């Protein structure tokens, strides 16, 4: 499981790319990718193109990010999900909290 992050658009958008299994072991790395920034991006994008699997801990981590990014005011997008990831997000009805593409 690997996490990389990339700040674009003059520091306004942070893209975090997940590859492999997104689970409990990713916890610290995921948090580090957005907590250590000096500024506060206006938008967050989670790119799941190489993510094979999400478990409930991963869903929890997404919630933590959303909370960090401002809760209801946050703009967090989850994109490039494969069918399995999509299904997990859909069962949890996370489209009520995140923009999912």
């Amino acid at each position, binding site marked *: 499981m690997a996490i990389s992050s990339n700040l674009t658009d003059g520091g306004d958008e942070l893209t975090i790319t997940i590859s492999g299994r997104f689970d409990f072991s990713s916890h610290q790395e995921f948090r580090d990718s957005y907590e250590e920034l000096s500024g506060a991006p206006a938008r967050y994008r989670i790119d799941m193109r190489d993510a094979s699997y999400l478990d*409930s801990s991963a869903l*929890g981590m997404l*919630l933590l990010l959303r909370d960090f990014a401002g809760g209801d005011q946050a703009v967090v997008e989850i994109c490039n999900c494969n069918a399995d990831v999509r299904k997990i997000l859909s*069962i949890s*009805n996370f489209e009520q909290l995140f923009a999912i593409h």
Partner: protein
Amino acid sequence: MNDAIRVLVADDNDMDRMLLSTIVRKEGYEVEVAVDGLDALKKFEEYEPQMVLLDALMPGMDGFEVAHHIKSSAGDAFVPIIFLTSLTEAGELARCVDAGGDDFLSKPYNRIILKAKLEALERVRMLHSTMQSQRDEITRHHAHLVQEQQAAKAVFDNVAHTGSLNAPFIKHLISPLAVFNGDVLLSTRNPAGDLYLLLGDFTGHGLTAAIGAMPLAEIFYGMANKGFGLGDILRESNRKLRTILPQGYFCCAMIVSFNFNKGTVEYWNGGLPPGVLLRGAFDELAHLSSTHLPLGIFDNDRFDDSTKIVEMSQGDKLLMCTDGVIEARDEAGEQFGFDRFDQIVQSTPGGDSVFDALKSRVYEHMGQSGREDDITLVEITMVAEHEVGSLEPDGVEDSGIGSEDWKLVYELGPRSLRASNPLPLLQHVVMEAPQLRRHAGEIYTVLAELYSNSLEHGLMGLDSSLKSSASGFAEYYQARARALDNLEGFVRFEFACRIDGAAGDLVINVVDSGPGFDFATRLDEKSMHDTAYHGRGVRLLKSLCQSLEYKGKGNEVEVVFAWCDVE
């Protein structure tokens, strides 16, 4: 007790022994000597040296055999062996290492070199010893933790895996991965005899997952037993979990209420795989899908407690599971999957147990792969009301003290009717009457029936004959939801209770501000038809109450619940 390290010098040559023991002693170690292989083994047992200098070539038992014995005799401890050898061929030196040697020393014996080797090996020996005692401490600590957890699990099991799960129409499997299980399965009956069941899956595993189950169970059982509906229980559960769970933790849950009298199941699914409803003909599957976020995520102002209702005929089955079943992987890493689950449910021959088929197929699928998640599976069959069994009386000791002559008027306007269910409160008040406690179930059923009639037929004007067709059923509840949003008017309860010795009666009068109906003609017809819900409700009331009378325009009904408890 001397702290000096003990060294054994085993050599058949007098000069060598003399030289080596002198060097070793002068470096601050304690020395013992042995003159051949057998002597070396004997001295090793008696003297228990921490290091050994061993001549490779001795007559009789040679150094290699001695080394072998020493290493196995030392067991867990690390006793370094330095082979004394003038062998120079690589193959021969390798043989020393294979026999268990940790280093070599060749002639002429050099004090500085031997000192360095002894010190190096002593460092390794200390490291090994430290690691071992740390390992032992970890093992002890772990055993202690496991013991604590097992005690806690006993408490937990009494809370989270209990309830009326032993009924013949319920089958369940709870298979925990660790001592604690993040999956929760709660079941109980409300005072009317409806079966409530909650299946939950907390984030994570083990203790962190399990700890949220305690307050959840308390809320579920406490409120269900008082007659609260699913919506109220969900709201309170969500509120509690939102408060106590850290950010990022939540509980995927599905809660159902089986009404055996009406043949319906009310449900709410937030985050669990869809419940699979297998209908009579065994070729029809419906899915009770997750349309809500799990519990503990939304604040209560955004929490959606709306439930759905579907019909189930006798023999229909509902199967629910947590994601551990769907995600169970075989050795190749392939998931069990939703499709396989559905296919097994649908294709199990009528009469065979669907639950058993699912259970064995899941385990077969997992094979030797080692489970990664909790496997929890439940099956509930819709049965006839008389098969369900009556509720056990509460067992609360009737002290005989309470309200024996009282009246209550309780009127609810539109906002109250929309916001909450008055039944638990009314039930609570009525239960103040000491002799009514043993009739809790009947009273609750009467109240529930009166309330739903007044609200749905009286105020909302819904036609219950809609419920008799499959599509009409769904339409009915949609219309109900719309009507609730636009509600106007009131429902008023009036209670008068009189107790005289062992007998008494409770007069319940319910008025709604609706237009009423022509009860004189309609009830006569209806009571002759078995199928209409409307008629069924009235028959139920008549069976529980001494009398039932419609009044006024038909928007008022009075029932008398009487009892005479002769011990």
